[in-house]
């Protein structure tokens, strides 16, 4: 079809006598409503793809990713029921199970609350206030991600043995996992239109009340997403709780392997962990509510005027410094001490370099695969509502609270049977990382896609793009910064991973984490320190980028 200009005569131009005042009043009111956040962008006028089915090009890879994530559950089913459901039930239906659930949940609750306090306060201080050196603090607040929980626990234990037990476990876990809350909350804070807060202030709300009634509710999805990851991390952690001698569910699972060499009770107990995970994921889903988050405006948001801190400046600085000191400076300082007291003979720079390089390699491959698998799941979770989409996302999380050893054994089980040539080869280890850390990348992708206005995808469709190309040319580029942030986060957690790496690495391969395990296992902390330091410093690079990243 070509155009033939002027081929169709139009009727004469109309000349109505409109009523300008009435017209602009209506338009103006709409704009004000939107600015106040009372009229959701798109609400009422844009019935988003609620209920409509995602395209196959997303469903198929998303299902592949979900299947991947569900592998450990299949394994658990086989193992737990190997001696009949009655036996499994006997293992689980025990007073002790209930106790352990209580202890694990108790630890998770305390750590999550502490992480929320640390994460939200630091995010607000660094993003919204005139805190001196806000940018630097923001980066520093991300660095604890680089510290493995077992290193944190170990440093605390060696410096303050009295912290062993609940306190120590909670302390170590909080200090390594609060960036999971800090990062998404900081991103959300940057995304909130400052005009909303100004409007609330003009309506007579004080700064605190504004924060509580306008800012906080909008941070809730981001904070809840971070809190979920923290909770699952706490449930699955073995390193810190074992060192701190705090008996949790994970510990009971490990004990079953270590003390009775029996996989059946371990599997039965793991199933309970999966049930807890599903409950937590569902609870997090409820906090999301129905609000859409996409901004439709294309103009750049007005620069935010930082809140002056006044006499709170010093306390705020002290707070940031204290958190940084205990979460970053303290473990690094302890490692430095070990390095200093260690004999020079423990330095093996060649070996260290080689191990570091191998670690970077597998972690990058793990992050790449995980991000790729998370992409369709994250997009569906962000763009589609309904049971199918929800189930898909939950499937990605289902195995996330399982201890690494269980996931590793599940992959041993399947690989030996169905992918023997891959067994104890790098690709399998990389797949293990994907299974373990899929939710980390899914959460980041989902949040990133939510930030991209869906109308752009509609426009691309109408301009002749098929759904897959829309994903590639519009959704992914727009969500890229957030997706990249998720990839960096995944990269960091892959670097720190130990139990699955031990079981699935190619024979003879070492990562910094396994090296660290070897050296501490031999009791040579001075020799372990360079590996721990290298691990933290290398993981600090992507963490640093995450801290600088602005959505």
């Amino acid at each position, binding site marked *: *079809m*070509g*155009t*033939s*200009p*002027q*081929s*169709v005569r*139009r*009727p004469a131009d*109309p*000349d*109505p*006598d*409109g*009523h*300008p*005042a*009435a*017209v*602009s009043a*209506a*338009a103006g009111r*709409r*704009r004000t409503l939107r600015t106040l956040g009372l009229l959701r962008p798109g609400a*009422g*006028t*844009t*019935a988003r*793809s*609620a209920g*409509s089915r995602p395209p196959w090009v997303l469903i198929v890879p998303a299902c592949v990713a979900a299947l991947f994530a569900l592998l450990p559950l299949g394994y658990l089913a086989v193992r737990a029921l190997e001696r009949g459901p009655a036996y499994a039930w006997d293992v689980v239906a025990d007073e002790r199970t209930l106790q352990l659930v209580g202890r694990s949940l108790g630890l998770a609750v305390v750590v999550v609350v502490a992480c929320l306090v640390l994460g939200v306060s630091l995010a607000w201080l660094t993003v919204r206030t005139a805190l001196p050196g806000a940018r630097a603090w923001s980066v520093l607040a991300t660095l604890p991600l680089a510290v493995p929980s077992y290193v944190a626990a170990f440093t605390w234990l060696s410096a303050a043995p009295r912290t062993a037990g609940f306190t120590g476990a909670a302390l170590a876990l909080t200090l390594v996992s609060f960036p999971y809350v800090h990062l998404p909350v900081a991103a959300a804070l940057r995304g909130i239109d400052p005009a909303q807060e100004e409007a609330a202030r003009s309506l007579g709300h004080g700064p605190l009340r504004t924060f509580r009634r306008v800012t906080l509710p909008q941070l809730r999805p981001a904070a809840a997403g971070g809190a979920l990851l923290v909770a699952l991390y706490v449930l699955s952690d073995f390193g810190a709780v074992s060192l701190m001698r705090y008996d949790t569910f994970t510990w009971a699972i490990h004990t079953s392997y270590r003390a009775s060499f029996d996989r059946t009770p371990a599997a039965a107990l793991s199933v309970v962990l999966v049930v807890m995970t599903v409950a937590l994921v569902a609870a997090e889903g409820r906090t999301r509510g129905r609000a859409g988050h996409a901004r*439709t*405006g*294309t*103009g*750049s948001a007005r620069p935010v005027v930082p809140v002056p801190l006044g006499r709170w400046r010093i306390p705020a600085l002290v707070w940031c410094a204290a958190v940084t000191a205990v979460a970053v400076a303290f473990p690094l300082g302890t490692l430095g001490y070990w390095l200093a007291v260690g004999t020079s003979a423990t330095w093996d720079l060649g070996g260290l370099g080689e191990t570091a390089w191998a670690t970077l390699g597998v972690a990058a491959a793990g992050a790449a695969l995980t991000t790729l698998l998370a992409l369709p799941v994250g997009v569906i979770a962000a763009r589609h509502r309904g049971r199918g989409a929800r189930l898909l996302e939950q499937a990605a999380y289902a195995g996330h609270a399982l201890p690494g050893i269980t996931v590793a054994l599940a992959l041993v089980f399947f690989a030996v049977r169905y992918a023997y040539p891959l067994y104890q080869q790098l690709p399998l280890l990389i797949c293990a990382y994907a299974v373990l850390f899929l939710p980390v990348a899914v959460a980041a992708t989902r949040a990133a896609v939510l930030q991209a*206005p869906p*109308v*752009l995808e*509609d*426009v*691309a*469709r*109408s*301009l*002749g*793009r*098929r759904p897959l190309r829309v994903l590639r*040319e*519009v959704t992914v*580029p*727009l969500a*890229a910064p957030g997706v990249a942030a998720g990839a960096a986060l995944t990269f960091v957690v892959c670097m720190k991973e130990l139990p699955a790496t031990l079981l699935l690495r190619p024979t003879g391969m070492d990562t910094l984490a396994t090296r660290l395990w070897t050296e501490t296992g031999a009791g040579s902390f001075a020799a372990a320190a360079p590996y721990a330091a290298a691990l933290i410093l290398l993981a600090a690079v992507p963490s640093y980028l995450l801290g600088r990243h602005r959505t």
Partner: protein
Amino acid sequence: MTNDLHIEHLAKSYGPEAPVLRGLDLDVPGGALAAVLGPSGCGKTTLLRIVAGFLHADAGSVTVGGRTLTGPGVQLPPERRRIGIVPQEGALFPHLSVARNVAFGLTALDRGERRRRTEEMLELVGLAGYGDRMPHELSGGQQQRIALARALAPRPQLVLLDEPFNALDSALRAGVRADVRAALRTTGATAVLVTHDQQEALSTADLVAVVRQGRVAQCDTPQGLYRRPADPWVAGFVGDAVLLPGTVDRAGRTATTALGTVALASPSEGSGSGTVLLRPEQLRLTEAESGGARGTVTDVCFYGHDAKVTVAVEGVDAPVDVRVAGPVSVRPGEETGIGLTGEATLHR
């Protein structure tokens, strides 16, 4: 080759209690610019999304140029409809330059043709030379014009504009609106403009369809709609209205009201009483002693190019508005005479 848009019995509901479209019919001749005008929640956005292919209709059909896009057993995906859309606030791809935004739909062309077409489109919307800019470097009006260029570049049969001028301030709006209309006319594409702003609809479109509760209440030229509204609701929605009780003469050609007798735009069937609908500019103030109807001025609103005078008339319940061009000589509290001109519509 015509690009007529033909919509028939379109129905859509979000759940049994929430019908949005209830058998909507609309015909737009090829090359015309039609406005779909309605209040919030009337279903106009749902209509637009069904035509574009983002939503599935429950029943009914959409045909463009004889090609069925939506119909029984037919559901063409958006990318195969050859329909351009211009969303609210433009929605340019923020990660692509202006030129690449415009060229986004030109995948079928080779590189040289694509560049030529892109430049042609930029020229069409008056932004030649802006190709290398990024969207955030443009003003709101410029963004809107680029969005139009992007939609028109692949030569769509139909262009849908979703409240495209909403985000622009009123000073800018008229200019952008005129540019958009000119560009559309040059390409000859059929266009549907969705809006809740009656002034925008009347001033921009060749044809205006007023949508109420999921149906087209009236579809007519802007003049026809304004002068001969189908019912008082439509009349009130497209402009200020003066409603007066009146009696129709035997021939059904005139009606007599408290303000005098007025010709009916279309002959009424039979005599009797009804509501006579006039526009404020059809009323005029006369000397108080001229012998016609009289009233007391209660309010005067001055707009610059004209003014609205509110008059309480003896024998009429509600005060009536009178639009006065030029200087206003009356003040609140004064007595005034009041008369009628032009034609009125009668509603029973």
